[in-house]
């Protein structure tokens, strides 16, 4: 019997319980396993991996005729930082967006394969995407605070999920700002516009906003690429704290950053997952020559 995690609870509260129980989940798990074996590149259940939060299986993404993600199979461990690296256009952002179905609205996109989170395939037709996104926060390269007060930015997601009690909002907002290592810098200006914050502060505000609704997974697409070294270091330290409670997947162009912040690293090239493993290993003795060439700057 599989353990029932929060994702299954989401299904239940959304009245999708029906059809979930029974033999279906075991059926989902076995989809395409044999084909993957035949293909070779299988980064599933590597020795030493801790508990798995997200399993991508045989994942393909086509944008029209562009095959942007090619048969990616990869297990992302729980409460660890996993970094996605690779040259521009290799599919990092595409992969990241498949994890919370942010790709869904792109015209002409075709996604096949599976993304299984806590045992539930999030591409099943009965998944409630809004609830899914509550459990998966996202932070982008360009900080995108709303043109509202600092407080309202953090409270936004909570209100969206029906919380009206000001006491609770205040409490949760403070907790999130603290977790995002921003509280001390903004506690006296909560009612001021978020647009008055520095770039680094805005980015941490976006992280606080993502944290406020209590997600389990945080996806970050180059969250520090527009920041100065001090703000970058703050965000990197923050990741180290956050992984105690959250599963984090981060795309970064900065290899040194991937080395510093992540526990696992995935190297993508031309839509393929070339190598995936412990960051220690990847940055001291990678398995593949392609990975070595890329991280040592011999690429291209």
């Amino acid at each position, binding site marked *: 019997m599989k353990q029932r995690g929060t994702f299954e609870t989401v299904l239940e509260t959304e009245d999708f319980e029906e059809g979930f129980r029974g033999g279906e989940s075991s059926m989902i798990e076995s989809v395409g396993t044999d084909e993957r074996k035949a293909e070779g590149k299988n980064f599933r259940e590597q020795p030493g991996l801790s508990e798995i939060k997200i399993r991508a299986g045989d994942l393909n993404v086509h944008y029209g005729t562009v095959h942007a993600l090619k048969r990616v199979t990869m297990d992302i461990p729980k409460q660890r930082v996993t970094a996605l690296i690779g040259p521009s256009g290799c599919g990092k952002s595409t992969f990241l967006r498949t994890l919370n179905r942010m790709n869904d609205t792109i015209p002409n996109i075709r996604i096949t394969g599976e993304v299984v989170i806590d045992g539930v395939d999030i591409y099943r037709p009965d998944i409630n995407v809004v609830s899914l996104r509550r459990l998966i926060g996202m932070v982008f390269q360009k900080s995108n605070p709303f043109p509202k007060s600092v407080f309202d930015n953090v409270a936004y997601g909570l209100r969206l999920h029906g919380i009206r009690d000001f006491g609770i909002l205040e409490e949760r907002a403070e907790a999130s700002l603290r977790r995002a290592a921003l509280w001390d810098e903004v506690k006296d200006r909560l009612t001021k516009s978020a647009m008055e914050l520095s770039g680094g502060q805005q980015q941490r505000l976006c992280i606080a906003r993502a944290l406020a609704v209590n997600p389990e997974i945080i996806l970050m697409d180059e969250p520090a690429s527009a920041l100065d070294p*001090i703000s970058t*270091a703050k965000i990197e*330290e923050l990741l180290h704290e956050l992984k105690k409670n959250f599963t984090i997947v981060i795309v970064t162009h900065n290899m040194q950053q991937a*080395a*510093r912040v992540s526990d696992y690293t995935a190297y993508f090239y031309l839509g393929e997952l070339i190598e995936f493993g412990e960051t*220690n290993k990847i*940055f*001291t003795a990678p398995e593949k020559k392609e990975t070595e060439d890329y991280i040592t700057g011999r690429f291209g």
Partner: protein
Amino acid sequence: MERHFHEELKELTQKLQQMGFFAEAAIEKATDGFLNSSGALARKVYDDENVINRLEIEIDEKGHNLLALAQPVAGDLRRVVTVLKINTDLERMGDHAVNIAQKTPLLPSELYLIEKIPLGEMAQTTQKTVRAALDCFVNGDSELARHVLWHDDKIDCYYDTIYSHLGNFMTKEPSLIGAGMKLVMIAHDLERIGDLANNIAENVIYMLQGKEVRHHAWQVLR
């Protein structure tokens, strides 16, 4: 801002410190065992040696990971590199301790010769030198480096004395050649340990001050 990297650097430093304790203990057991002709004491060196070998690999791995993952600079970089060098020095010290332990217990002819040379004093000074070198690292005290250099000079003098004494004995009494050779080798192990302690002190000065004093430490420190 506190960086968790600094926490890891502290752990690396502590691991090396721990290895230093074992190296010190191994040298002490080896020399005491030899001088008292106690095979039982000498055999304990192997336990220390096992720990030292394990720590050497752990420190190497951790140091390499920190270099690759955290990209330390300035004082942090010097510290990681210094730890890696001292790591090798301490492991070599462990090997010399084993060399000495392997020659225990003593034969009667060796017991006879050992009375005639200052090997006990040399061993004492060697232990002090190693202690000073490790204190130098642990306390971040480059002043202590002077003591290391000074003790090491004394060790070299003992070595020269022992070498020429034993040479004389062996020339006069060829039946003592076997015993004499063995004692020369012991003295040589101690002399090498002193050199390694010297390396440690020089590396600590580099770590602390960013100053290169290898091969001319005396000029710099005096």
